[in-house]
């Protein structure tokens, strides 16, 4: 349960990072920050949340 919640927090954190690119003046930096946010969210889905679900996957039982 706790890992799943951490995963969700990381996913939302990625969105905050991406949105914070609106506060950056340089377009190149904006692109970097937006991509970074997307990557952080993807890590939350793939690396944390899904992995937490796989711990109790039906094929492991």
């Amino acid at each position, binding site marked *: 349960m706790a890992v799943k919640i951490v995963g969700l927090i990381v996913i*939302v954190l990625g*969105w905050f990072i991406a949105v914070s690119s609106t506060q950056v003046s340089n377009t190149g930096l904006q692109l970097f920050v937006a991509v970074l946010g*997307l990557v952080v969210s993807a890590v939350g889905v793939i690396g944390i949340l*899904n992995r937490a679900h796989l711990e109790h996957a039906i*094929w492991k039982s």
Partner: protein
Amino acid sequence: MLITALWLWGWLVPTVVRADDHAAASAPVQYAQAQQAAPSAAAAPAPVPITDADLKAVAGPKTEDLAKGDPGGTLTGSVNDIVVSDPKKGLTLADLVNMVGQNRIAINLVWTLVTGYLVMFMQAGFAAVETGLCRAKNANHTMMMNFMVYSFGLFAYWVMGFAIQQGGCAPNANLGGLNPLNGEFTATVLGKPWGLFGTKGFFLSGSTYDVGVMVMFLFQMVFMDTAATIVTGAAAERWKFAAFGVSTFCLAAITYPLFGNWAWGGGWLANLGTNYHLGHGYADFAGSGVVHAVGGMTALAVAIIIGPRIGKYNRNGSPNPIPGHDITMVLIGCFILAFGWFGFNPGSTLGASGAGNLRIGSIAVNTMLAGATGSFGAIFYMWIRFGKPDASMSGNGLLAGLVAITAPSGFVNTVGATIIGFTAGLLVCLSVEFFERVMKIDDPVGATSVHGTCGLWGVISVGLFADGTSNYGGSWNGVDGSVRGLFYGDPSQLVAQLIGCATLVGVIFTLSYLFNWLVDILVGQRVDAASELEGLDLPEMGAVGYPEFQLVTAGLGRSVDISGQ
């Protein structure tokens, strides 16, 4: 690869130059044509204002001539058919001008309705594709999910979904203004007003009982329904029917309308351009993000929660193929979807008259090209990787190309559409393998890859390939000029698109996950193991899809009698 890259670069670079010089290059051409067509200005007669008296002098065909029939169509439709406001005064200039205005709106209303009907027919395509890709023992259940998603979704959208999404979308010049939809809840975030959700149109009551609003509702509703039906594929063969109903209600009432508002209803994503100078704001012409990625993200959330089917993975985690039962149904369904997409993309102009809407031909051609190259990309990948031109992945490639071109269809040229579609065809194959082998997510129809992955790719591709030639009334999302991507000189448009993608993953996925987690706790998402092994037709629906057949469940070492005897 080098030759391919050079070929693509050869197409792109000259196009960049042409696009940059478009205004300057096109002006002399128009000038030359005008010189050939018209006499000199000095010889032209001075314009004379038209008066009501001039209109009364216009004679229509006589009744006795019309009574003879009009096989050539030269008499039907004349001054006699213009509606006059006061028969005593006869035809006036005001009548004529009002008729022209109403004809424009009528064309747009009819266009939007007819294309909406085409999108509605896509439900049949989704039903065929998903049912064909599932096993015969789940045919009734899968078909019924695709059937009932229409009713569940429509009801939820009528109650509140439409109001949340489009309640503040006015004005819309194509559909007569849509002035009753003038309520948008906004909050100040990062120093700017952010539109968060609409507040007009609940139950389509009050002032929203309006001809234009009804057309808008129908069109937006069938789009929402497309997103809702994506989820049924990813959770097929083990989803409890009651849980499916509740989950669909949540998507249709809340998650889909929220993102729809942010992108299409005047919300904060659409205003990234006016608020933060990021291109023309988040641009999603027909919904790679709004429809397909929202459906794909929800499908991913449900598939993670519900887990893989029994028999999909071995104890060591290696996947087993579980082939569908009817590939003919799958490919016919794909063709139905491709047909319906001609409503999806060209229909998203919300009109065929005025404000740059004659671009519908270009949008339709982009759509068919991307679909074709999508299937080509997928067959290319599968043939090289596995030695056979896989039929189901060819179908998914077609859909992937169509999904990807949905957002950029109104902004790109045919070369861009071809590249976007082909890339989507490759991407969907890689994505299916990634979800199945790395993430160990069981998605029987590949919905997460087709609609989620390729939906995100479609959103990003706007920020790359939009060529700056579209002109829908002179601006987009309140920013003057046309949408232009990175390859055509505006990298800030790509930033807006990436923020849209991050919102789909960071917010829409999270909301979908939380709603479906709650459904799992309250209702239970998954059927019991015995029902799953037997097939969901009898345990969940009470009737089998194919009652006169004895079905053998491959790989489980036993046959299942589903005759119901």
